[in-house]
């Protein structure tokens, strides 16, 4: 399945969708396939200031625990509360209802290191 072209991707398997100065962050289909059933999600609280490359949260699956990274600097403004009640949304709809958090970007320099959908899919076929 091809990754959508409206966003860019990190090699640590987060998708980044930029709309104005707000970034929505999520996990790719490849990441979710590798993690298997997700059982717990914890993101940094709104108000948390992050630098490019910082950990912004973690997800636990039946098999493993993984950190979530953000490629740009900014402030967490919203986390997807639906995931605390139903972490499996990440498995069923990682690119849509399973988004992780929104970040108000204050320095987008890290964006340059991200891949477009074609390059990401070529590097991580699923």
């Amino acid at each position, binding site marked *: 399945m091809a990754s959508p072209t409206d966003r860019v991707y990190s090699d640590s398997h987060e998708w980044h969708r930029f709309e104005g100065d707000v970034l929505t962050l999520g996990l790719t289909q490849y990441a979710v*396939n590798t993690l*298997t*059933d997700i*059982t*717990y999600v*914890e993101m940094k609280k709104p108000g948390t200031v992050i630098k490019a490359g910082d950990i912004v949260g*973690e997800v*636990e699956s*039946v*098999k*493993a*625990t993984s950190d979530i990274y953000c490629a740009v600097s900014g402030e967490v403004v919203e986390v997807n509360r639906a995931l605390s009640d139903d972490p*499996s949304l990440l*498995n069923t709809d990682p690119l849509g209802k399973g988004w992780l958090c929104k970040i108000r970007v204050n320095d987008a320099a890290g964006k340059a290191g991200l891949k477009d959908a074609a390059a990401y899919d070529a590097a991580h076929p699923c």
Partner: protein
Amino acid sequence: MHRTPLHKFHLDNGAQMVDFAGWDMPILYSGIIEEHRQVRSSGGLFDVSHMGRVKIHGRHARRFLETLCTRRISDMQPGQCRYSLVCNAAGGVRDDVIVYRIDEDEFLVVVNASNRQKILEHIDQVRSAGDYSLKIDDQTMSTAMVALQGPKVMDLVGKVSREVPTLKRYRFTVKNLVITKLIVSRTGYTGEDGVEVILPSMTVDLAMKLLLKDVDLKDPRAALKPVGLGARDTLRMEAAMPLYGHELGEGINALACGVDFAISLDKHNAEKGERFIGQDALEKTAAAGGPPHRLVGLQIEGKRAARQGNTIKTAGRDAGHVTSGCLSPTLDKVIAMGFVERALTAPGTPLTIDTGRAELAATVVPMPFYKTAKA
């Protein structure tokens, strides 16, 4: 990488494959939790062909296995299987195995995939150190092994064989299939009732057709569905069955692992009694009051899982470590197993688990975490 005779079956059923001990195996088909629930509520089909199957036969097979295995072998009846450990001289665990007594002088030993080469070498060494007349035949590559597990499995199997549902736990029968034979045992690694079938590789397609003739695997409500190694792991954890590399290992004293039933420290007192490798060391451990650490079950508050290697603490100091853990799909609680100091093993003992990310509150609980009403 090795492929089992069911490799194509896995791909046809949409499996996500992983390398497991050098075998290309299905980790999951639809999802680990869904498959886990399928086994608890109905039935699951597991390819366990990657496990080693070693036939040991000949005049001294019985005596040889008494030396190799911690559990008594001589009093087994043909048609009986037994869970046992294989120990090193220091009393550590080399592997856990199921021994099938096919005939007076004929046995089959099922070993872990990751330990097959090591155990074959161990068998060779033990054999050359003693005076045994026996034959060793590694049948892993020429046979397949399939586990059918779950509350509805015996009804399904009953349609193909009237005899199999009458088998007691840890008994097996040898059935004819065309010109070959298959071994059907009432055993498993899920905590559910069910069978494990060992059959020649070339008969797998035929046997699967026979078995699945009334089952549509693609039907969401199918009584039997394929289940991968992911759910096999969470199922065995709920049933508190140890896994080599987690609860069992060369450096782990056999008396610490919660499987004392499989260690016959008195086997030499029986008629024709022989001692087993590791017995001297384990007798010393027992005489000293047991190993300093023991395996316990833990229930953890919240939804964050503890993982292998996490530190178990009491009153701020280290008291042990976690060997396995997951969010139990059946109980919807986080469960774990781990080794803790002997003084902290009583159910109800409060402990803390340091995952490196968080400190989790845990309580020692009896094992198994889950027990089916029937099995």
